[in-house]
């Protein structure tokens, strides 16, 4: 469990980071909390020649209120998010979600930006990011842009991020009525199924992680939602459900319905 040789640079500004990414290209990896990248490097599944540590960039680990939005810096740890009064009061579903991630050590180090960029199909945040219609702010040498949650997740470990882009923040609308429900994988404690439900006057938005190779908005549930939990039966409509030795596709599909029902209740 010793990584291959690599260089390490800790940057203090986003400009410095994007310059280095531009310079080193595929040889570089962005290091945030390191809770997915470092294990992969220790197994030598990933062998970057340079790590660009962005954890020291000023301002990127702040949670701010801005009008109707809560802006969560990409370097905020899960612990920071679950403990923030601002998040708990204005965006409780995100605090709930963060609290289910990993264990204390993971939550103390892992960051929301790192998790989203890594895009593990069983990670927790994607369900909530989708259900909240959050916006992901990214920066590269060519400037900054904002990606809608629904466009962001594109497959297993695949996102809309360009190779030279770094997530700087996630902008969430304030959410009064949200609920995250998770069925834990007994070994990794990742989500076998994670369901985020956000209710507003117009209906419901449902984000689901762990079920398909890409986290998704359960539009069929949203459409069928009638105020009861009956719509849960549509949790996997049109979805190619994943299968592994903890949960084959039959059981996982069943669990998705159970967890949507719980989240809608």
């Amino acid at each position, binding site marked *: 469990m010793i990584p*291959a*040789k690599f260089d390490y640079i800790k940057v203090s500004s986003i400009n410095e980071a994007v310059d280095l990414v531009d310079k080193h290209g595929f040889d570089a990896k962005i290091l945030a909390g390191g809770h997915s990248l470092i294990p992969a490097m220790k197994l*030598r599944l990933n062998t970057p020649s340079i790590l660009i540590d962005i954890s020291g960039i000023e301002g990127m680990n702040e949670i701010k209120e801005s009008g109707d939005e809560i802006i969560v810096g990409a370097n905020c740890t899960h612990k920071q998010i679950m403990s923030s009064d601002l998040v708990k009061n204005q965006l409780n579903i995100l605090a709930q979600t963060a609290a289910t991630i990993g264990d204390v050590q993971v939550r103390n180090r892992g960051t929301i930006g790192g998790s989203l960029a890594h895009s593990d199909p069983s990670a927790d945040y994607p369900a909530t990011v989708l259900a909240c219609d959050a916006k992901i702010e990214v920066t590269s040498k060519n400037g900054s842009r904002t990606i809608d949650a629904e466009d962001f997740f594109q497959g297993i470990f695949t996102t809309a991020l360009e190779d030279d882009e770094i997530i700087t923040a996630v902008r969430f609308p304030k959410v009064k009525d949200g609920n995250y429900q998770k069925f834990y994988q007994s*070994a*990794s404690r990742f989500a076998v199924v994670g369901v985020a439900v956000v209710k507003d006057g117009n209906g419901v938005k449902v984000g689901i992680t762990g079920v398909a190779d890409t986290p998704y908005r359960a539009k069929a549930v949203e459409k069928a939602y009638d105020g009861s939990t009956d719509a849960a039966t549509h949790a996997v409509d049109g979805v190619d459900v994943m299968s592994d*030795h903890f*949960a084959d596709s039959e*059981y996982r599909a*069943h669990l998705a319905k159970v967890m949507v029902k719980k989240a809608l209740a």
Partner: protein
Amino acid sequence: MGSYIGKSVKRREDARFLKGEGKYTDDIKLPNMTHMAFVRSPYASANVLSVDTSEAEKAEGVVAVFTAEDGCGQYGVPCGWQVNFKNGETMREPQHPLLAKDKIRHVGEPVAIVIAETQALARDAAELVAVEYEELPAVTNPKEAMKDGAPKVHDQFPDNMAFDWCIGNDRAEVEAALEKAHHVTELEFINQRLAPNAIEPRSYIADYDVNGDKWTLYTSTQNPHLIRLLMCAFVLGIPEHKVRVVSYDVGGGFGSKIYHYTEEALVTWVSREIARPVKWTADRSEAFLMDAHGRDHVVKSKMGFDKEGHIVAHLTDEYCSMGAYLSTFAPAIPTYLHGTLFQGLYKTPLIHLNVVAPFTHTVPVDAYRGAGRPEATYLIERLVSKGAKEMGMDPAEIRFKNFIEPFDGVNQPGYQTQVALQYDSGNYAPALEKALDAIGYKDFRKEQAEARKNGKLLGLGISTWIEGCGIAPSAVVGALGARAGLYEVGHVRVQPTGKVSVYTGTHSHGQGHETAFAQFVADRLGIPMDDVEIIHGDTEQVAFGMGTYGSRSLSVGGSAIVKSIEKVLEKGAKIAAHKLEASVEDLEYAGGKWTVKGTDKSISFGDVSLTAYVPHDYPQGLEPGLDFSSFYDPANFTFPFGAHLAIVEVDQDTGKVDLKRFVTCDDVGNIINPMIVDGQIHGGVVQGIGQALLEEVVFDESGQMITGSYMDYAMPRADDLPMIETHNTVTPCPHNPLGVKGAGEAGAIGSTPAVVNAVVDALWHLGVRDIQMPLTPQRVWKAMQQ
């Protein structure tokens, strides 16, 4: 001075462990030390076509690169137990090479080793070794391995069989009794393969001293002397007296650190080749791939009952995997440590077990906490509970009906089983009664019925277990195929000041010997515990020993120490008599002094000790000194027993099992330190629960382990568990001086079937009769759907 026995004295070793100051092998850094890294096969079954080390040899920091061509350990690693076929044919024993030459037989099997200045450089260079493989089909399931046309593990054994063995009564007789039985219950299942998961990965350092032509091997082992014997005499052919084996603190073993591993012999061999110290420490991936696994039985069982619920016969057929090679004790585990417990606690008159042991393309299987006895208990206790429920009987009641009557092994003889062994002492009903009372059995059935009405699925499971431990009488195990004696050595060195150093051949890797052993030594000598030191784990300090496994430390190792204490007191009495001008017969020893009976004339242990080493005024003809070593070979195994009860609630929607309560009443004979026994029970119970609910080594079709990390191999965690409620009864062992039986494996042996019986009980009304372990939410939910 008082009595220490029976008191929960806090563990002396914990101060250093809790402060992170234990001395583990990987903590040792020797001057000029090199590091070893392995080139391991990514395939389960393959031909090795070529190995090119040229790039690695040129890499930065590389000291040497070796392959099988370099002649290390040409005899391979030996097996320590021979189990022959039932027809008399000799066990088939393939060579287990230190480095694979032509053929790969499991994922992780090493092909080459790289020695470099640092661990990181060794790893880097290992990646530069180019190995060309031709992948071949693999077989990982022991039953599949026995099918015609199954991939062959060893070409010279085309049927993949290591042995085909049986024990118990005549098979035809057992089958006939099953034919005639009022009711026969059946089970077919897999007792799944488990990874041992000691918290400290295996670690070895060999240090060859050119001038003395001697080695020191620091190793994370459970039995340093046995490693030295096996490695010197069988693997490397080096004189035993030239090797010192040191095993200081070891972070858990659970069986996996009993065996002599190829890596241990390799560091020793390499150290002489390069005349420098060599270290290797497994990482967690290597631990999953290379530490001997446990269990892996494919089981088919039948148990017959008469109308009243008495067991009339039990027949079981099993396929028990050996893995790719025969590990040190592997053949004994599914045979003499398994079949000999098929009597359980019951008067079953007819028993037959047949075991076919195939080779598979997997890492070897050997003892894992309980070693054969958990597998026996699981199938017996599942059969008894299932049979009872099918017959409409109470699972507690059927056990009381079948229990062997109490016998203390003194006034009543031991109980002769149908499966070779004789139980030492037992009184089974009180243990179950106490556990049932503690859990509130009668009220529970009402609660369960009430809960069902509200859609809640509650269940209670019972397991009444027995095991044979205190391993072992040498002549008996020798007759059963062991290639070693299983006695123990206890050496008591009284220092001139009356302080006592005790050297034991057993080995503590979490058991608390430094505390528990000091308690009984201090009591026997009537001196403060602080005056007693326990030393283990160094072949140059301890004369000999067989290490720790099979819950043997106190019953066998402790008894050896008691023998030496008796010798100390006998000689001390002669010195005391001389000093007190009395005869030995007129003396009594208590409270750390010899007193002339009926007088106030006495002499302390310390004064006698000093006299022994300053023998100026001394009995004529008596040797100076107070220093005795003893070998103790037990008269029998010991047979602890008990009852484990579990209450579970099953989530109707997801199938997730919530373990609500776990109650034990164990009888491990006399107890020296109740806190340590409790701790042992807790740990064992949790490992048993892990097997019931969470743990499983899974291979894919090609023989890849897909549960090779904690992302996929589920270990029990605190939040998976209720508080474990422990109780005891005490039935002393009649054949050892401390009356102790052994507690190290008890928890793991009793707990697993209690949990599974509880889940099946919760779902019985839905038609569920059995669920394959581990009882994952998916498996439980699917069972509920059928």
